[in-house]
């Protein structure tokens, strides 16, 4: 089933970490396996934020194989070595869990080559790269993940999130949403639905040099959009192309450093409720997600089939 939520403050910042936590917690019944956040924080924009993992969370119903923590440490050392070789300067380093890290780095070369080099290390996956994007995903509900990563005080303009019920792939971080729009900085995607032409699209996109890290069909949306943008399409153009390029039922959100978009398939088979005002757009799989941050009486609506919308900060 899965639940998705997103919000964007226009012209101001807010406590988006806490707001998205409330929205996703309200949707916990739609997806108890894992929770993910893509938050666009008020960073200074000088350095890239690199979030990566060197292993999986093996607790909380995980389907991953248990590994010794020393293995994680070895992989982390390999990442540090590779960063040095690539000419990336680590400004700040945070160990968030035994298997995940947040680095601030100075880097001014090609992000695709950078990502390929880092991910050539076994079991290392870049969760996100961006100057404002903070992508966090882990097993557990919204509150558990937020507390584990200290998200409740995170200030920013917008964010998207996902409460996952694992269906076609395992209960693990690599299959959790959001997905980073590799190789573009600050692009992230969450999805509710099923894509039925995943393998056909994947083969085509891999032949074009795009990369997949999981077997989760939702990752296809991020890669699909990234490939279109790589060929010069705008985000909105890519999203409109996705309505015919992706087969199946879906509602998805995509965010960049200064925008938030939604797309709904032509069958309108997956739910979405939307609230729009001059200074805030909030949306979610169910109205209770929006009510968790806006308890007063408000006007909401369901976008129609085949609808694509993009809002700017």
């Amino acid at each position: 089933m899965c639940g998705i939520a997103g919000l964007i403050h226009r012209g101001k910042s807010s406590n988006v970490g806490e707001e998205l936590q409330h929205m996703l917690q309200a949707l916990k019944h739609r997806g108890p396996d894992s929770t993910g956040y893509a938050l666009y924080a008020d960073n200074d924009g000088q350095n890239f934020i690199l979030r990566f993992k060197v292993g999986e969370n093996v607790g909380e119903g995980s389907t991953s194989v248990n590994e010794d923590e020393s293995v994680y440490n070895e992989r982390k050392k390999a990442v540090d070595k590779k960063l040095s070789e690539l000419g990336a300067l680590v400004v700040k380093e945070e160990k968030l869990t035994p298997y995940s890290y947040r680095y601030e780095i100075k880097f001014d070369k090609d992000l695709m080559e950078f990502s390929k080099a880092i991910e050539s290390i076994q079991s290392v996956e870049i969760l996100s790269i961006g100057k404002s994007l903070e992508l966090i995903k882990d097993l557990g509900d919204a509150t558990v993940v937020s507390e584990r990563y200290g998200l409740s005080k995170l200030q920013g303009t917008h964010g998207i999130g996902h409460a996952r019920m694992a269906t076609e792939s395992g209960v693990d971080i690599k299959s959790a949403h959001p997905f980073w729009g590799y190789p573009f900085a600050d692009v992230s995607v969450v999805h509710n639905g099923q894509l039925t032409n995943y393998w056909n699209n994947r083969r085509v996109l891999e032949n074009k040099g795009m990369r997949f890290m999981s077997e989760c069909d939702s990752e296809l949306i991020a890669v699909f959009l990234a490939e279109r943008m790589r060929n010069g399409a705008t985000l909105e153009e890519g999203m409109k192309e996705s309505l015919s390029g992706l087969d199946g039922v879906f509602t998805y959100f995509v965010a960049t450093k200064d925008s938030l978009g939604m797309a709904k398939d032509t069958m309108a088979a997956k739910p979405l409720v939307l609230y729009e005002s001059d200074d805030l757009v909030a949306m979610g799989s169910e109205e209770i997600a929006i009510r968790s941050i806006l308890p007063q009486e408000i006007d909401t609506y369901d976008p129609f089939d085949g609808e694509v919308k993009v809002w700017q900060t």
Partner: protein
Amino acid sequence: MANLKTVEKKTKAQSMGMHTETLTGKTQQKFFNPDEAENFFYWGTYDVDFNKRTDLDVKDLDCKQANGKIDELMSQGYGTIVIKNPQGKHSLGVGILNKLNLIFEGSLGYFGVGSIDGPIVRVNGRVGWSCAENMMAGKVVIEKNAGSCFGAAIRGGDLICKGSVGARTGIDQKGGTIIIGGDAGAFTGFMMQRGRIVILGDVGINLGDSMYDGTIYVGGKIGSFGSDAIESPMTKDDIDWLKRKLKVAEIGENFDVSKMTKVVAGKKLWNYDALEPTEKKGAI
């Protein structure tokens, strides 16, 4: 209805819309006997007084607790209940089988007022997916917008949304009337079997896809017709019915119904007319 005291048992039962068939074996059931009408008890219903009114704040209640409270109030004879702070909660006001004035001061989530048989409901807000699913009788008025599957599988009653609705409105509809003041999404009237849908605004693609029977009236533009749905000429009866219905529904009273598009099933299903004549009678 015929005079129930003088007609034969079978006619009497049919007039009341009840089954008269006798089953045997494992499927044997005890059917309603019109001779015992005085002793008939519709389980889960209450005699209520519309003038007895109360408010119920459900802000801190979950849907089961809120529905339990509504049931408790009806058992105490309250006939007008105003629900405060529904805040988009799911499944509120479901399964009410008696007359009742039920007013929601706010919006409902999914499956609001589903499986009802008789109450008059007003929602001063929006409703989520599958509002009034399986409604059997009564009247439901939504002041704002509604989500998808609005009026799924309803069998009777009037379901009115003054705003716009999502996809698959009236999916599997088996009777009753659905009226939409704004626009409707894709697959409206999908697999519709009986009853009527009236949309004053535009409607999305695949209108009336795979519909068996029933009638859809559209005031605005149609995205596309679904498989088996065709346009049919408007008749005087259609226009009279629409005028009367929109007036009663307090929606689009000045709307020029003569310019609406009438959509019906283009295929006649094998032996379909022989099915459930009492339900068909009810739908007409």
